[in-house]
């Protein structure tokens, strides 16, 4: 039998961890429990559940930034007015994540720490230039998500350290948010390829600013300054997007797996850019 601790405060958690340094933390368990069943994660002597830690479950704002508690569930974020108002690209991604049941259990912190190339919150978090807040009870470290995630399933998280929050600047300079995931069905689908985009479009339809990222087409989320540069200053048109699509197909580094071939992922990475043709700044 595995012991499960349910601390209500971080202080309680740190003291538990001190006594059981081998314990594994989990939030929704939608990744961890699955991996324990298949043996990908060896059973730990104890589990510490984060779901009752109000301290790291809320969403707060300052004048120009938003802080999301790591243990906030996807469903909570999808309902949250601050997220809905400021981070449409994230809500679009959350809508495609798993199913209502998975969104009720799974958390943003879990999605980040799992660091899957197919993690659906990651492409938005990359272009939102999210920072992660890591704490071990004594010191706090802050780094960009790009620095934090070092490879498929690999992060800079250290033993005894907890991801406590995600920090985001309000992306006020962008007036168009877009996320699209290609999966093998419409829900409960692991991304075969995905793309997140933030654009600032002038009333005349010129792309003034652009940030783009792709999921599931490389060991970590793919960003590409050359593609962004190819868009910025250009009129939003099929030609512009097709040219950028040609570039990203060269950059992504997908693999063949049971869900799709690398070739398909490469094609789709480019094709998803064409969807931006419909982009309109909010009127």
């Amino acid at each position, binding site marked *: 039998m595995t012991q499960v601790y349910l601390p209500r405060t971080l202080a309680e958690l740190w003291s538990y961890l001190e006594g059981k340094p081998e314990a594994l933390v989990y939030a929704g368990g939608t990744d961890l429990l699955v991996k324990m069943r298949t043996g990908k994660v060896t059973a730990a002597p104890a589990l510490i559940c984060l779901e009752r830690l109000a301290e790291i479950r809320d969403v707060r704002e300052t004048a120009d930034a938003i802080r999301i508690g790591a243990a906030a569930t996807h469903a909570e974020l999808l309902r949250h007015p601050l997220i809905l108002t400021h981070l449409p690209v994230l809500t679009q991604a959350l809508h495609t994540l798993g*199913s209502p049941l998975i969104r009720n259990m799974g958390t943003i912190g879990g999605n980040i720490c799992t660091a899957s190339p197919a993690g659906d919150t990651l492409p938005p978090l990359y272009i939102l230039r999210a920072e992660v807040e890591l704490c071990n009870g004594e010191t706090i470290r802050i780094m960009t998500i790009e620095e934090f995630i070092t490879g498929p399933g690999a992060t800079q998280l250290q033993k005894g350290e907890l991801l406590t929050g995600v920090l985001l600047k309000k992306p006020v300079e962008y007036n168009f948010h877009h996320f699209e995931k*290609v999966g*093998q*069905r*419409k*829900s*409960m*689908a*692991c991304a*075969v390829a995905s793309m997140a985009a933030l654009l600032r479009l002038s009333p005349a339809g010129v792309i003034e600013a652009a940030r783009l990222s792709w999921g599931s087409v490389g060991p970590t989320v793919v960003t590409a300054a050359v593609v962004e540069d190819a868009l910025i200053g250009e009129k939003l048109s099929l030609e512009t997007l097709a040219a950028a699509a040609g570039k990203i197909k060269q950059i992504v580094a997908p693999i063949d797996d*049971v*869900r*799709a*071939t690398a070739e*398909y992922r490469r*094609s*789709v990475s480019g*094709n*998803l850019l*064409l*969807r931006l*043709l*419909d982009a309109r700044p909010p009127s």
Partner: protein
Amino acid sequence: MPLCYVFLRMHSTESDESHPPDTEETSRVNPYIPEIGKPVPRADAGAKATGAEKYAADHYGEDLLWAGVRRAGVAHGRIRRVDTEAAAQLPGVIAVLTGRDVPGTNRQGIVHKDQPVLAVDKVRHCGDGVALVVAEDRATLQKALSLIQVEIDPLPGVFTADDALRPDAPLVHEDHPQGNVLLKATIQAGDGQAALAGCDILLEDTFHVPVQSHAFIETENGVAWQEEDGKVVLVVSTQAPFRDKWEISHALGLPLDRLHIIGPYLGGAFGGKDGATVQCLLVLAALHASGRRVKMWWDREESFIAGYKRHAVRMDYRLGARADGTLQALHCRLYYDTGAYAHLGGEVMALGMEHAGGPYRIPHTLIEGWCVYTNNPIAGAMRGFGVAQVSFAFEGMMDLLAGKLGMDPLELRRKNALRRGDRNAAGVTMTQSTGIGDCLAAVQDHPLWQERKAWKRGAGPFRKRGVGVAAVFNAMGYGRGLPDSALAKVELTTEGHIRVYSGVSDMGQGNATAFVQIAGQILCQEHTAIELVQPDTERTLPSGSASAGRTTYTYGNALIKACEELHRRLIGRTALMLLSDTLDDLELLPGRVKNLASGREIPLTVLAAMMAPEDRVCISQFLMPVVRDKLDTGKEFVIGFPHLLFSYAAHLVCIEVDKLTGAIDVKAYLAATEAGRVLNPQSFEQQVQGAIAQGIGYALCEEVLMEKGRIVNPDFATYIIPGALDIPEMVSLAVESCEPSGPYGMKGVGEVGMNGPLPAIAGALADACGIHITGSPLTAERVLAALQKQQETP
């Protein structure tokens, strides 16, 4: 009191587990007489919704032991050694058994007995069992299974039908006289393929369909124990409890009267529980468990690896027609990959061959089939039994022909649709209800067809819309060579209730509800007074398997006779009690028999008390009629060819294709189905919708992927079945006809709907984008590749 009710049900003992009248429902639903033709609620709805209904998987018991199987993990090889020493030493392990410990023939199989319960000298697919462990708990079981040392010398394997047919191919069964060919058969009608030469138009193409998994919720499982008198009781998730008894008896050498099989409602089956899964293993385990209960329950991965599958098939087609679209001649070659053991492979292929020409008049045909052993997982029965595969090919050919002729695809189908009196492509005269023409007409009249052109113009940027149709059919019943029989039993209980003893499983298709309706219709009792007993070899009578769209048809016909007999008896015995000198004034009414002339009545409880127990029980047998044509073809089929009765359907689908991703979005679906008369509109629609949903999965995403016989996607994270969002609104039109041989004019409706979605969607894809894909499923990746190829070719 729902909780009390659940509690009571949980403590009811195995042996008197019939369906008590649903007290909980009584308080909420006014009593009604379940009658034919009404959308009577499912008999199992209340108990299933409250969780009170016990599936086999819900059976545990005190002092329970767990049994599990060590699988080969090697697709083809010779067993050198199975060392069970370490496992047997583990504390908590009760028994470790190998093939050498199997008494009897150690052979299971429905028609061909070629599958060992536990492999002895050779393994033929990764899922072959090499050892059986019985342990105190699940953790010990897992540990013990991992301690068994299995040494297998790998042999070269064969993993496609083509490979298996090569002259130098390794043999899956060395002792099989025809090498890797389980069955080679031919159906010929008219002048056969010679007639192709004289056709104005000749088209040919090759189609491929992959392995599909049944993906039922309740995986294979059961509980077994040995009673003091030596008898073994098995509660099991099965489609064929009586045949199980024969199979176990043969494989384990146990006399039939030492086996007692109980088959509760199933949490899905679709053909995958038609044949031995856990049965022989569990009974063997029980023989070593000193009377304790033993449970075996495959997890999802084991269910994929060891369970049955739908056959992958390659289909080479040549179709000849006149310039006006009249079909003239067909030649096809079908290669069914049946995997490591026969199971129902030959019968599945037989049905596929019988349907290879579609529901059309084709005077000259040559249909050749090879059912081939490979080292892949075992293929067997699945909804649309061999027919779902060929439907893709014959409807694909019809679309090609329509395209070639520039003809409306629906018109082309109507022109060639079978009518009563025609001979079908297997040369059988259609003597019974034959409603495909009416189904096609219903689709043609529907707004989805009439307004399709405008709808297609509404596609957004980077999207294309298309509409496809398919005409399909599915035989019902076992066909010639195997008596399709049921024995119905109905009783007036001492409580004055009517109890129907069903010998044929309800895996969710709703036959149990139809039985309640038949009893209600004839015996005029309220639903609260009609009880159902699910299959149990000591209480109910052999009625065949839950398969072939036959359960309501065959058992229902038997039940009508049994209920009519009981009705006669109740009236006749009342006459004695009321001293009536004529039966004419007596009427069976809810809870009583009344003399309408005198107003006097006898409650059924009183009548039951007066009647002798054997007088209160009526038993009747029904045997399905068979084809009378003397056919000089298909001689290779020992059983299962040809069939007398078919259900028909015309399907229409509206799809939108995303040109950027290749994804097909199914926007609307229409099915017009002829399955005789509709006994229960709700049950009918559920069968149609369920089949369409499963068919959409087959069309778009379901595919068991294998590398040298090893399944690489044995779970629901990677074996993709559609979810609620992938299935559109489905409109079901019942195109009724009367099938005189059916109970109240019905035919089976469970399978035919499975056959339409793949060809209809493939047709819609061609309509939308001009691409003709002949390998399914139609995944986004395949569609995008075809679109890219289309762009490259000028």
